[in-house]
């Protein structure tokens, strides 16, 4: 399988501006930062959640707790993906009971990753509320999952892939739409 780049969806500045807006929206629609905590979905949700927390600290002067969740053990496709994917640790050093959680991920697609993340969170306790923040919504949902905080909605075909490249992981910063060609 070969992939070709079709077009750029977001530049580095656009990613930054989008995250600034999302950080403000999260605080505004939570009525402040009480009980608020961000949960980054491994991998690219993690730097995004950290950036959102940093931005919130910048304008609200509050350090919102940030955690990381690994969804591997909660995937519903394990028996069909062949050799088992590598498991990583969660890193959530605060109790989730009674918290107002915002799951942060890069791309919302089928909704299955978010279902898995929610299952993982329930195993840790009983949050007061869970909402979802994503950078890109590319459609093609297979579960009734919607983002509460959305960066950009993009029309895609099911052969296309949305590639989010972040400085912390990929040493470059942009979002691209690529297509699979045989």
């Amino acid at each position, binding site marked *: 399988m070969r992939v070709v780049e079709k077009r750029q969806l977001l530049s580095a500045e656009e990613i930054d501006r989008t995250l600034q807006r999302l950080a403000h929206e999260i605080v505004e629609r939570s009525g402040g930062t009480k009980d608020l905590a961000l949960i980054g979905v491994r991998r690219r949700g993690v730097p995004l959640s950290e950036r959102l927390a940093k931005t919130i600290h910048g304008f609200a002067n509050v350090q919102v707790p940030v955690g990381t969740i*690994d969804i591997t*053990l*909660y995937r519903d496709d*394990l*028996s069909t*993906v*062949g*050799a*088992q*994917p*590598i*498991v*990583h*640790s*969660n890193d959530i050093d605060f109790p989730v009971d009674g918290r107002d959680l915002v799951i942060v991920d*890069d*791309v919302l*697609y089928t909704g299955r*990753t978010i279902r898995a993340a929610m*299952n993982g969170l*329930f*195993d*840790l*306790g009983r949050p007061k509320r869970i909402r979802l923040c994503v950078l890109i919504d*590319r459609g093609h949902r297979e579960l009734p999952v919607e983002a509460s905080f959305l960066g950009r909605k993009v029309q895609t075909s099911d052969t296309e*892939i*949305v590639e*989010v490249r972040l400085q912390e992981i990929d040493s470059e910063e942009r979002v691209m739409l690529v297509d699979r060609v045989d």
Partner: protein
Amino acid sequence: MLQRLEHLLGTEDLTREQISFILDQASPFQEFQKHPLKKLATLRGKTVALAFFENSTRTRISFATAAARLGADTMNLQAESSSLKKGESLLDTVMTLEAMRPDGIVIRHPSSGAPKFVSERLGIPVVNAGDGTHEHPTQALLDALTIRDRKGRLDGLNVTILGDILHSRVARSNIYLLSRFGSKITLCGPAMWVPREFESLAPNVRRASRIEEAVKDADVIIVLRVQTERIHEPGMAADEYILGYQLTPTRLQLARPDAIVLHPGPMIRGLEIDSTVADGPQSCVLEQVTNGLAIRMALLYHLVGGAAVEPAPATK
């Protein structure tokens, strides 16, 4: 490239990379043991056969709990109630189990090599839970995890193993595993239980006849149980063993100040280990038990969960 494991028969066959991979994969499962809700659905619909042809309490419970926490079901075959007593062969027994379509089998057997024999005849992953005087690989892996957690590394440690080395599958599995990381291993116990041949099992293995010499400068001391049920030759008197080989606080002081003490259990206080040492800050015996769950969950997840092909990356 990491060679994918199909079975876990012993640590002798494992590469350094495979060992490190298993230990790394146990780490998320260590964290999992602290969850308020200890139940995953990861292996839901999978069945693990636990075939224990030899009595076992802690290892069997550990594997059963590991399988349960991953969401797998277990079928149990135990020595006391097994058809082994009615004269059925090992192969017939495991083929009967296989006909019930488990997705993996965990075997403990009094004969060395039984798990390998079974793995060559069944089409499902086999995990050795202890075979005769051969190997007990999951014990060595959980020991290694405990050592790595406490010491921050596995490389180049001075490890002393005390007791009945000759009949100990734990000792063999530990020697194979730790020597992959360049440990200097010292074996010590009554002469009849520490044969010279053990020095050629792996590089950097030596024997010491006196316990004081054996524990000097040790980073890790693994105390073995005195396995009375395996001893056929005229054994030594208990008081003689205590005098010569019991790990006492005074003897422990000869080791490095930050040395740790491991014991695979069940522990006989006052025989191979003094109670003060067993309950002291250097003792890791209860961590070993918790780590055993993590190691066995990681192994069942990777061995029982997947098919032997490359994983498809999750695309978005």
